[in-house]
């Protein structure tokens, strides 16, 4: 066997030894994702802390994998979760079923559900794969209050399509 042939064969390999490594040392180093990356869902809030989700179940209806389960209930001014009458009293996403297609985002009339950038979804049992409302909801923003909150009568009597952040 010609040693030259051997070197030629290894040329690419050898040349790579002088390149910078492309491997990220996950989990020490995390690779940034694209802006439109579809990762784990979040349920958003308005600036005042009210939940955007109105419990309409359209995300569940749109979901091709039947991963979302919503139950709704009625807000009162004494115990308000979202603007308007309806809020999601139960909101569950089964991450084992979810295919991250983003149809739920498209279906949402209040832009409450957003597929964000977190992709670190691993579980050790099936039950943990069910993300509940409390896990999905983002924390109340700095100037907002947590839900449920007490609000003035008729201050938030409409759920849609007032998309702007309520004052």
């Amino acid at each position, binding site marked *: 066997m010609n040693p030259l042939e051997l070197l030629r064969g290894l040329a690419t390999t050898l040349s790579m030894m002088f390149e910078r490594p492309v491997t990220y040392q996950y989990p020490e180093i995390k690779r940034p994702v694209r802006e439109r990356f579809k990762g784990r869902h979040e349920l958003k809030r308005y600036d005042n802390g009210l939940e955007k989700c*109105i*419990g*309409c*179940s*359209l995300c*569940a*209806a749109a979901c091709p994998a039947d991963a979302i*389960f919503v*139950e*709704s*209930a*009625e807000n009162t001014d004494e115990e308000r979760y979202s603007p*308007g*009458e*309806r809020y999601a009293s*139960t909101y*569950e996403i089964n991450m084992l079923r979810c295919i991250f297609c983003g149809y739920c985002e498209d279906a949402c*009339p*209040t832009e409450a559900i957003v597929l964000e950038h977190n992709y670190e979804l691993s579980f050790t049992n099936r039950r943990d794969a069910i993300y509940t409302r409390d896990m999905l909801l983002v924390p109340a923003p700095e100037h907002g209050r947590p839900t449920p909150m007490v609000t003035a009568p008729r201050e938030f*009597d*409409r*759920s*849609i*399509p007032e998309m702007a952040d309520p004052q």
Partner: protein
Amino acid sequence: MSVTLTIDGTEVTVPEGTLLVDAAKRRGTDVPVFCYHPKMKPVGMCRVCLVEIGRPARDRATGESLLDESGDPLIQFGPNLETACTITVGQGWQVRVSSEKAIQGRKEIVEYLLTSHPLDCPICDKGGECPLQDLTMGHGSGESRFLFDDKIRLAKRYPLGELIFLDRERCIQCARCTRFQDEIVGDPVIGFYERGRRLEIVTYSDPGFDSYFSGNTTDICPVGALTTADFRFGARPWELNSAASICPHCPVGCNLTLSTRREASNAGRDVVKRVMPRQNEQVNEIWICDKGRFVHHYARSPERLTSPRVRKNGKLVKASWNEALTRAAEGLKGAASSAVGIASGRLMNEDLFNLKELMAALGGRAILVDSMAGGNLIQRYGVGVGSNLGSLGKRDAVLVIAADLHEEAPIWWLRLKQAAERGTTLIVANARATRLDDYAKHRVRYGPGEAVQAALGLLHLNGGDPELARFEGDRALKSAARAIKRARNVTIFFGQEGLNYAGTEALARACALITESKGRVGKSNNGLVAVWPRANTQGAWDMGLRPEPAGLHRALAGAVAAYIVAADPVGDDPAAAAPFEKLSTLIVQDLFLTATAELADVVLPAQAFVERAGTFTSGERRVQRLYPAVGALAGSLPDWKIVANLAHRLEVDLEDKAAPLVFERIAAAVPDYLGLSYDDLAAVEPQWPEVGGADLYFGGTAYANKQGLGVQLAPRGAGRPLKWKAPPRASAGKDLLLTPVTVLYDRGSALRHSRLLEGRIAPLQLILHPDEIERLGLSEAGEVEISWDGRSERLKFAASTDVPPGSALVPRGAGLALSDPTPVTVRRSNS
């Protein structure tokens, strides 16, 4: 007479007087409607059913049809579009539903409607089954030219009562709800207020929306303006599954659809989210009463029994099925022919059949706890096959005696009211005024507890025994009797108001004999209907159970063991506990730990109707099927299965595998049910008006019947001659005859365990005539003491001029342990 016309180029022939919109529907053309409803008079308010109508031109002078050049009739189209829902068809008309002009006209109407509609479909309970959504998709334009900011803002949550909520923005002012309450129910407790876009529904009653039929308005509302407290934000319609069922609360046997969905609160298992009517034009049409709609929550009560219990060391403790059944079997075995089975008409035919078979095998008796006679007579003199209250007309007559149908069987009341409005001769005989009186052509009043005398008086004038002359009665009675004589068909509803068992026995006989006159027995729209206290009391009679005429204490005399299924005699009358305490074995099978169950040695948990397959036999002897809607409560079993399991331990062979197999045995053993099968009961045929189609013609969410219309049993016919019975002797004396009257919202276990109707349960109070109150010298707010048979009770009282002289009324099942009319002494309470 039929009329032929052309709709969109296709010829169609329909009966004269058909509305254009219905004619189009029969041809398969869907003309959109909002305000029109086939059960109500057209009003032409929403204007969405616009079509072009061309009529044959006529010469003004001669009245003759004009012809065009080719010799065909000349058709003239008017300048304006016309509403198809208000115009009846005409011979030779040409109707254009799909012309450009008509389509454009409807598009404009939908656009106008949407200008004042909030379009909050995502949170609207109707979203997904909403006629406005559907018709907008089908007939509206894709975009609105109306500026969103101009939309009117109105109250979103306006309770009309504690049951029905109004969203004023969503209301499109079609007036279906107000017209339903006015025209169909005769309870005009809601109406329009103000005008223009400010027109709004208001309620005029206290409590708000006070009607037994209020829930139906939410079904026929073509938008999400009316919602029930029960289903408000409960689920999205597309998530619901549905199961067919039969209402278990009265003998009408309304067909139901139970809408179910899994729910976190039930560990992800199905729960009943709402109860809706299922169309059966022969039974309930598309209506149900509010009790049937809202009371289902008792099935999910946390107080339901979830495991058998057995008495150990004097205490009831949870036990395994095996242990409980073994213990029960031992008790029954020891008692053998001294065992008594006691059941009520709450049970299904399968349960009752198995129970009867078990008791027969033991040599014991199976007693029906509902103390009203006549089930055997219904088997002979019941209404003929094809009887339908909806088909009664001008030449027919209906007698309602000793019953208050508005309270006891609301849908019968509703249908009889409508029949009377169609011209049917309605005769109402009662000791007091009832809600049906308003629609009766003849009102017969008799003394308290004297229904039998009145019936015998009617019989006397309908070819009865000359001996009956002494019952002849007053002019009202005579003219009622003549009306019965003249009528083509006669249906008789008899109840038990003011009567004990012997009284109902005599009443049933008299009524049977009235139907026998003029050879009416067995013909459709002729015959007897008993206003039973329970949904399946007739089925219980058919399965061979009988009440004990002398009362339960007599049935228990000498009994060693009792097996009580779906009955609570001790709860009904705590004073009746003694004979149960003496038994060596008491087995109680129920949903709840009732007062009787608390005395029991063995308690067996049964299933609620929403969990069960089975059959009910209605008062009109229609056998109808229930399908399970939700999974059974863990630990409970269907009654027929518990009975069969118990039977196995006693070496009695009963069917324990499936309800249809039990029914097969019924079909082999019970004469009137011979050859029937679940398949027969599941048969359907097209019904008119057509509901639940893709076009939501009904504009609402009534369900089409795809699961069975049931089978009406044929009466056996008169057979051997029947002899009338003299009325039992009245014994009032100086006392008042205290008469229990049935109320829809009583304190029964169903209502007590349903939070929704709590506020409407009839209060326990003595109802006295104002004259009587004065005579007794009662103050306005005090209490009275009543005493009878050495017992006494203190009660609140209320005044009503409807109370017949010499009597007092008390709501049945409201807490007073009295089921038969009883003479009582009333006096001022001393405190």
